[in-house]
């Protein structure tokens, strides 16, 4: 695997050569500081751009075109990363060797058609196409409770700090949806194309010179944008007393979600000690939480923790019977305290390190993981894979307990299942 970065003025081009895939993957990433009221617009915008283009006037025609390019796949996503929103367009297509001459170029042209030639008339999107995209957003918003775990984490984040981007719902908001018109949606589009930072990643077996000229030919951005805000959120000071919040849901199972802010982390802790701490505490099926809450006490089927290092947050989630709420919270508290006191073994640390090394080695097997790797090296100044592997080996037990001491259980949210109960 070979990585080359080229600064093309208005965007960064990242070329990753690998012979592991029969496809070429191209990801165009727009990023800009996140604003709550922009989220819904972005959700509708990416949907509308995949409904039709100047050349292909319906979703069916767009899909048929992709199928003709030997089943090229095109998708979009909107993601919050710390203080930023990332709007991505991703193309995956078979190389010419496995199809016919020109398939890669035609696929890239197709991706650029979707991004640069939307189905627009007089500075407005087509109303019928926009309404379709709005309808899809309404369905997504109305189905939000169907994934109870996801919903409980969302509500927990809102209870934790409703002013922070941590609480932003990436599905969007109904009140913002109503304000979207075919005209202001076009302004959102123009704003994204003209003002967002842009990075383009290409992964696969190709010649760098040829690929650079292909990308230059089909992707032209006018402005050069350089100044950048930090990606990291400010760490919120934990409450003096734990906040308990609750909401009922017409389900059998209850979902527990806990926000644990981490104060004053150093970069080293963020990228090393915390990663191991989480793996030992609740990250895997060999973790303390899994062994104690599930295996020893039979309280749940799922229990795990995850970290969001840009948000300075550790989140714990479990699916439980509501009658076991106190018992579960007590056990989780006990296990976190044990982490702070160093009640875990050197073997636990070695296992966590091994797990981390395996995941580093797996990066090159997956196009999306490769892109995320170089993206984060670029925007967060992350150490390279090799450096991370070496530095992780040097993490000591006291480093892990030290970062654990900075973790506080702040907001405990219960989505209480009250099925078959009288209200």
């Amino acid at each position, binding site marked *: 695997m070979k990585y080359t970065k080229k600064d093309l003025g208005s965007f960064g081009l990242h070329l990753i050569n690998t012979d592991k895939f029969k496809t070429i993957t191209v990801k165009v990433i727009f990023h800009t500081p996140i604003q709550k009221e922009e989220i819904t617009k972005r959700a509708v915008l990416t949907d509308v751009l995949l409904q039709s283009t100047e050349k292909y006037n319906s979703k069916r025609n767009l899909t048929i075109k992709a199928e003709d390019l030997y089943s090229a796949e095109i998708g979009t996503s909107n993601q919050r990363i710390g203080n930023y929103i990332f709007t991505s367009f991703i193309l995956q297509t078979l190389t010419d060797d496995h199809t016919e001459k020109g398939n890669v170029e035609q696929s890239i042209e197709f991706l650029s058609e979707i991004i640069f030639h939307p189905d627009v008339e007089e500075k407005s999107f087509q109303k019928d196409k926009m309404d379709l995209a709005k309808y899809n957003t309404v*369905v997504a918003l109305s189905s939000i409770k169907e994934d109870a775990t996801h919903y409980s984490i969302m509500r927990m984040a809102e209870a934790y700090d409703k002013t922070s981007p941590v609480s932003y719902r990436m599905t969007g908001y109904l009140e913002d949806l109503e304000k979207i018109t075919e005209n202001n949606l076009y302004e959102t589009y123009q704003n994204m194309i003209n003002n967002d930072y842009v990075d383009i990643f290409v992964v696969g077996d190709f010649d760098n010179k040829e690929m650079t000229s292909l990308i230059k030919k089909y992707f032209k951005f006018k402005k050069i944008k350089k100044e950048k805000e930090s990606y990291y959120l400010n760490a919120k000071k934990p409450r003096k007393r734990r906040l308990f919040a609750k909401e009922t849901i017409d389900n059998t199972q209850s979902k527990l979600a806990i926000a644990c802010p981490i104060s004053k982390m150093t970069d080293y802790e963020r990228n090393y000690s915390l990663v191991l701490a989480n793996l030992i505490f609740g990250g895997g099926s060999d973790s303390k939480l899994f062994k104690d809450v599930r295996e020893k006490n039979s309280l749940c089927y799922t229990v795990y923790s995850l970290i969001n290092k840009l948000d300075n947050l550790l989140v714990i989630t479990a699916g439980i019977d509501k009658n076991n709420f106190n018992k579960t919270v007590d056990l989780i508290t006990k296990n976190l305290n044990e982490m702070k006191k160093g009640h875990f073994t050197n073997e636990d640390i070695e296992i966590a390190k091994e797990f981390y090394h395996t995941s580093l080695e797996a990066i090159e097997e997956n196009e999306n993981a490769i892109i995320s790797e170089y993206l984060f090296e670029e925007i967060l100044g992350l150490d390279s894979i090799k450096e991370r592997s070496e530095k992780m080996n040097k993490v000591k037990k006291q480093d892990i307990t030290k970062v654990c001491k900075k973790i506080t259980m702040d907001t405990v949210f219960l989505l209480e299942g009250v099925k078959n109960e009288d209200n």
Partner: protein
Amino acid sequence: MKTINLSGLDMNYYVETLDNGLEIYMLPYDNKKNYFISFATRFGSEVIEFKDEKQISHKLPLGIAHFLEHKMFEQESGEDPFTFFSKSGTGCNASTSFDNTQYICYGNKKFEENLEYLISFVNDPYYTDSNVNKEKGIITEEINMYEDMPDIKLEMELRKNIFHKHPRRIDIAGTVEEINKITKEDLYNCYSNFYIPNNMFILIVGNFNKEKAVEIIKKKLDYKKKEQLPEIEQVEEKDEIKKSKTEITSNIEIPKLAYGLKIPTKNLKLDSVELDLYLNILTTILFGASSEFRERVRNEKIVNGIHTEWENLEDFRVFYLMASTKEPDKLEEEIKDEISNLSITESSFNRIKKVWIANEIRMIDNIDATVNNLYDDILKYGSIISDRIDKIKSMKLKILEELIKKIDFKNTSIVQMLPK
């Protein structure tokens, strides 16, 4: 060891069968670091009654195959298999389906040790009253979790409409009441009857040495004897669907619709692989991403995303279509309309063939997807299909048209799930 070429993909897979009947399927890659191992038995939730070699009949508590899968992770030594695999950063898991249970591990280190350990832990059951009881709380929460997922409830409801007696109308995990009846004796009984070499297979894909793999498997399993396969009680399932329509309510805001088509296969005269290809291309043309149907229902704002799936049974194929829709009645009408006015053009037929061939080539890059496909092949057809691309290439519209004439497209059932 037999070597078989995967045509059109420039790769070989290898098959070895031990004297005791255990089958080993291997697809080595030379440009990958990671590997994936599955150790599987053809024992799943649909076995609800069987006769053992002494012709003694055993009626099983529902959900026992899944319960057994959980309990396989219990070791007499007290060592947790998750911990063992974690030591080399290796992932480990298991899953139970209607007709199989598999134990898997995947990673990029210590292939040989991990293969050996995977076989060992599935080879050594250790059930006690207390470890069986302990699991009941965990599985109860698992059942409750699925119970709260509207899409799963919808599918189960449709299964109840489609099947009269077939155990595929019952949830894989069983019910809270039934799993509470399970004893360690039940588990040992199922284990000794269904976890026998001639009912099991091992599938390995990725970065590994095939000779070494066979050597390890032989070392661990060659001593086992071929046993008489238990006689699974077969229920007589009627050709017709059980119920044509049901309405249920659930904790949702947008209604959902599920549509099922039940096809008895005995008079269709196509071999199993071809039959599946033709049925699949039919529903892809009718309901797939580039279908006219999708364009129509999208533009009428009836539905956006649709999930479709075919299920293989011994004497049936069943098609499932599920969607969230604000207008379930209208969607129901549209589906019935589409089915009763079938028209397949040569151009869409050929376009889907091209897409499928491209997808086969792309899929082989992805170890996880490849594993799933090979695993499905082994279960459905008894071996890996090595000439799928050739089979797709030789598909003819005329054969599809002949097949369509033999299918009763009225043998369908609908479930509407409405907000409470």
